[in-house]
């Protein structure tokens, strides 16, 4: 047999090919996401039966339970799904483009840049309208800075990570200075947001993050085609007809844009962007095989991770107020250490 197993579809000028394992994996992850979402809606301090819950979801009633679902649990769940998916795609884009598993927006300081930018503009203007533009500007600036400083005839993992770390520390100091002017209560809220938290999001936040996914997502999937070819190295990618620098620029902007949107609704949640793509790859074997986009898998895994972390954070008996980011860090940090060990063993650091 010379052909790998694949599901091929053709329809007029359109055609594609997906490895069965990739398709099954993506569907399974979506199923897990649905299950976890149900659990997230169901569990909480205000007890609800399944029957009550579905009644509220499908025919609105004017009760406390209605408020709990429609104004607390559902927006929070949706922001978790949206931000997680955006972080997942954003991480996969940069990691695959730079062929470097350590180069995710949260590890190399893009998320921190977006957060600082958002905070800075909000404080300057006093209006939350400017969160997103501020996050975008901060994200783009920090990305440009990190890549500029780390570039030395190519990007080495070590330089990228260390410079990203240095930038993150510097930005944290900057944030501390900015926060010294605030009263304690606001400062405490902002601190929590800076770890990554979305305790009581508005429906406008839901609209923002899903708006971002709907507008930027298709472009990201479109670039997924080029992204797979970029894995072959600049020479072969060019030889196969890609405009490598232009593809890089587009992917960078998409990734920073998705990060900025996710950060503006959920704060710089650590490690979701870092972990989603490698997990999706390992489980779906989508790395090289076939044409199924690995981005969808990364989005699904990112959403799952975020919703699970948020669920754990809400369900703990003691810390009702711990930020979600603490739990994504507890999943992600060991993965980062493991990845670093792998890179060191490979001699890449």
């Amino acid at each position, binding site marked *: *047999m*010379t*052909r*790998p197993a694949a599901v*091929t579809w*053709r329809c007029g*000028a*359109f*055609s*594609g*090919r997906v490895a069965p394992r990739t398709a099954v994996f993506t569907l399974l992850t979506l199923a897990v996401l649905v299950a976890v979402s149900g659990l997230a809606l169901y569990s909480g301090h205000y007890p609800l039966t399944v029957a009550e819950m579905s009644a509220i979801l499908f025919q609105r009633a004017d009760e406390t339970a209605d408020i709990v679902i429609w104004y607390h649990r559902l927006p929070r769940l949706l922001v978790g799904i949206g931000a997680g998916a955006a972080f997942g795609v954003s991480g996969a884009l940069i990691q695959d483009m730079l*062929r470097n598993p350590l180069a995710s927006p949260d590890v190399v300081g893009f998320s921190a840049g977006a957060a600082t930018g958002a905070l800075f503009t909000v404080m300057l203007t006093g209006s939350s309208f400017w969160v997103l533009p501020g996050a975008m500007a901060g994200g783009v600036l920090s990305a440009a800075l990190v890549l500029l400083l780390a570039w030395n005839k190519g990007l080495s993992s070590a330089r990228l990570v260390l410079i990203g770390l240095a930038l993150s520390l510097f930005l944290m100091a900057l944030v501390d200075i900015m926060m010294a002017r605030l009263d304690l209560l606001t400062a405490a809220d902002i601190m929590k947001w800076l770890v990554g938290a979305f305790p009581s999001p508005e429906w406008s936040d839901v609209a923002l993050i899903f708006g971002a996914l709907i507008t930027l997502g298709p472009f990201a*999937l*479109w670039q*997924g*085609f080029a992204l*797979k*070819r970029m*894995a*072959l*190295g600049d*020479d*072969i990618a*060019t*030889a*196969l*007809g*890609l*405009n490598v620098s232009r593809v890089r620029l587009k992917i960078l902007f998409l990734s920073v844009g998705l990060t900025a949107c996710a950060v503006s609704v959920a704060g710089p949640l650590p490690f979701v962007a870092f972990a989603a793509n490698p997990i999706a790859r390992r489980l779906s074997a989508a*790395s*090289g*095989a*076939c*044409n199924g986009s690995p981005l969808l898998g990364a989005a699904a895994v990112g959403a799952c991770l975020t919703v699970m972390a948020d669920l754990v954070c809400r369900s703990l008996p003691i810390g009702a107020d711990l930020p979600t980011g603490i739990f994504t860090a507890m999943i992600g940090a060991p993965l980062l250490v493991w990845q670093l060990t792998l890179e060191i063993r490979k001699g890449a650091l």
Partner: protein
Amino acid sequence: MKTAAYPLSAGGLTLTRPVGPVLDELGLAVPRGKISVVIGPNACGKSTLLRCLARLLRPDQGEVLLEGDPIDRQKPKQVARQLAILPQNSTVPEYLRVFDLVARGRTPWQSPLSQWSRADALAVERALALAGVEAYSLRPLSELSGGQRQRAFIAMILAQDAPILLLDEPTTFLDLPHQIELLDLVRKLNRESGKTVVMVLHDINLAARFADHVFALKDGKVNREGAPADVVTEATMRQIFALDCLVIPDPLHGCPHVIPR
């Protein structure tokens, strides 16, 4: 489409590296439908020349014309449909399977919405068979020998289906029988499908045997060019490689055969 006199040509190519000028106002015109071989001593700039011709490197000065038009002013995808290159050392992800690598060769004919047309499937099957890699098409590159990997790459650029092929030392990692087999394949592609081939070979005897046209590089310029019988001579070998040798007609193939003294 209008037909230029030469499918691929270059003029005034100049490229300076820290070591000094590598290409120095080099000009060359590749004959259509022939096998051209570039020879020259190590580090004389053969790979650099091939990379410039395939727009993988931008020269400091000078211009490359593909079918008469400047190559860097044409759409990258259109260029890739006309010209395929096998660079000298390519590092690709080790987990990639041969089949997937070969399928990537179809990129210039694909788009995000059409990633596996019937033509793609056919071209990949044909390339796998031609390059003789069917037997291990499902193995990852990391499990292959150097020679098997080289053939997988050949299959990739065959799948690209371009009329012009640039090959940088395609015989590295191959033992002698496989070198001959590969060059026979190149010749077959040239004779049967009319492909224009430009390749770098370091073995002068193989170059003399398989070339229709030889470019001998020295000091960043094409020093001599022409049919093997005119270029592979004792005088040229001394001048280009500083090699003291005897050149006799190959008793089997009639081409010049170099015997170093």
